[in-house]
């Protein structure tokens, strides 16, 4: 028997550690490209202020990298402890991109970060720029392989189930690499990281400008951040639309939950801007709707329908009934390996094996499932609508608020007026947490929306967990949360301390707040 509490705690632990981990990641992803831009201008112009910008923002980037590195390792710990059955079932596919990430991208990233910080006096300008660019490439390659693994969890292509080994086995590596879900997720996620980096530089620069500190340095930083941020936030929105389209294709349950779309509507479906969701009655009590928009986003056509939750549930009921036959055949084969009829039945219904396994939450013998159990399994196939609906809208709302800020910041930098707009600078400071919030909400929508599966349509979450004790999970949860909280506090302390010092901390003699006894560097 698997206690429900064990499943919930395992999920909570993974969610907590993943969300903490992703507080560090997007800033690394974004700031590294800002460093490449700043250093490129330095190499092209020879203007030393651009070198100072690269070194100063690189220092803050280094703090974030040092605090963030290895924070993802606890997630991998959990695969072996809390999610042992998941790891066995899909490790053949899931393990490959994680291993490639560790061997290739992580080492590339770490090596060049060392050269970036200690190579200023040892490498030529161009050599150092190449190092910075390779560091950026390594950082983004890290994200690529992780998101290929995650994309496969959302849309498991290029693999098939082997009943003899009881695991999914890879049949097409390139299908996994070029999985449309993974690619859409990668570009959307890294773009969100670029927005985070840009917002960080914009906010800190706005703070200097409001205080009249190191104005020339801060003006240049503000301009670069505004331009890069505007391009990035436009990418996030466009690529988010692409991500929404791939979700609509591969994960109709997630799409329907995000839109609180209970019934299938004539194409093109309207978009529920806001709605009063009544989960128990499975309907919306009221809604503000925009005609056509949902159909265009979800299908990119005016004639294709998007299935509503009730239609999806009806389909899933059929799949669960088919899945019962697959599960029964699998259990027969496991005890009678030569049973040709069971093998034929399994092959016939293998696509629905995961749906049959959903009933395992309620009964040991799926053949004995009662109509009530089947009803509950059907309900399980749709994630809770209310949190999905509002989390998605909060994420999109933050995205458009950032678009407005970056667009205005860029426009005023073109006109050279941003210093005379203190409200804009204050707005930039207050928006600092926005990209982090949006990133966390995005991950919530992606992962909570995949429930009740760890591997969509293949492996239910409740069968993925290990049979650990609830007490040990409480202990490890407290340990992990404590660990990450300490790191977060130290990160904020160091960031505030060195950001307050400003470029004067470089000790070049060109800025305010120069440290006493500083050695000229540049």
């Amino acid at each position, binding site marked *: 028997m698997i206690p429900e509490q064990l499943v919930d705690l395992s999920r909570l632990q993974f969610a907590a550690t993943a969300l903490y981990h992703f507080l560090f990641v997007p800033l690394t992803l974004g700031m590294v490209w800002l460093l490449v831009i700043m250093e490129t201008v330095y190499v092209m112009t020879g203007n030393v202020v651009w070198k100072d910008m690269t070194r100063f923002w690189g220092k803050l980037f280094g703090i974030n990298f040092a605090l963030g590195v290895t924070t993802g390792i606890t997630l991998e710990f959990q695969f072996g402890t809390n999610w042992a059955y998941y790891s066995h079932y899909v490790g053949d596919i899931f393990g490959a991109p994680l291993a490639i990430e560790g061997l290739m991208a992580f080492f590339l990233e770490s090596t060049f970060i060392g050269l970036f910080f200690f190579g200023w006096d040892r490498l030529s300008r161009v050599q150092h720029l190449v190092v910075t660019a390779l560091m950026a490439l390594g950082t983004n390659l890290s994200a690529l392989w992780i998101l290929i693994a995650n994309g496969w969890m959302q849309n498991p292509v290029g693999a098939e189930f082997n009943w003899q080994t009881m695991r999914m086995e890879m049949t097409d590596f390139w299908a996994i690499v070029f999985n449309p879900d993974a690619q859409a997720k990668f570009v959307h996620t890294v773009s969100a990281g670029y927005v985070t980096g840009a917002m960080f530089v914009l906010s800190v620069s706005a703070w200097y400008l409001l205080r009249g500190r190191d104005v020339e340095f801060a003006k240049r930083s503000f301009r670069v951040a505004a331009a890069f941020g505007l391009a990035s936030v436009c990418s996030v929105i466009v690529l988010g639309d692409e991500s929404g389209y791939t979700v609509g294709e591969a994960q109709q349950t997630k799409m329907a939950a995000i839109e609180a779309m209970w019934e299938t509507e004539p194409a093109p479906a309207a978009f529920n801007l806001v709605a009063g969701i009544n989960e128990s009655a499975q309907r919306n009590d009221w809604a503000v709707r925009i005609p056509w928009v949902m159909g265009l986003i979800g299908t990119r056509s005016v004639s294709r329908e998007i299935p509503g939750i009730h239609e999806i549930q009806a389909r899933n009921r059929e799949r669960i009934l088919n899945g019962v036959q697959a599960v029964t055949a699998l259990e027969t084969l*496991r005890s009678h390996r030569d049973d040709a009829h069971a093998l034929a039945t399994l092959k016939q219904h293998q696509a629905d094996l995961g749906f049959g396994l959903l009933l395992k939450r309620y009964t040991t013998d799926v053949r004995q499932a009662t109509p009530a159990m089947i009803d509950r399994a059907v309900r399980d196939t749709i994630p809770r609508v209310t949190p999905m609906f509002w989390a998605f809208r909060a994420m999109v709302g933050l995205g458009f608020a950032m678009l407005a800020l970056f667009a205005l910041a860029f426009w005023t930098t073109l006109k050279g007026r941003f210093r005379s707009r203190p409200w804009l600078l204050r707005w930039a400071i207050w928006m600092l947490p926005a990209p982090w919030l949006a990133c966390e909400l995005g991950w919530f929508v992606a992962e909570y929306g995949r429930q009740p599966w760890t591997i969509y349509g293949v492996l239910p979450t409740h069968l993925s967990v290990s049979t650990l004790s609830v007490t040990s999970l409480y202990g490890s949860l407290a340990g992990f949360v404590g660990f990450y909280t300490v790191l977060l506090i130290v990160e904020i302390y160091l960031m505030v301390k060195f950001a307050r010092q400003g470029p004067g901390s470089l000790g070049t003699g060109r800025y305010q707040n120069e440290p006493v006894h500083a050695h000229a560097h540049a």
Partner: protein
Amino acid sequence: MNASDQNLLRHLGWVLAIKLLLLLGLWLAFIAGQRVPVDAASASAHLRAAPTVSGNPRLQGARP
């Protein structure tokens, strides 16, 4: 490298060292002894015998 850089390096050195120690502590306390070995037979047995919901009835049937 100026005094500020050295100060930062000292901070980061301590942070990395303490982080590795904490990770090692977490590993020893919660991970090293908890690894669950799984093979085809145990995975099959898990699927066969694992089922049923227990505890927290609030979560049952509350979903749409």
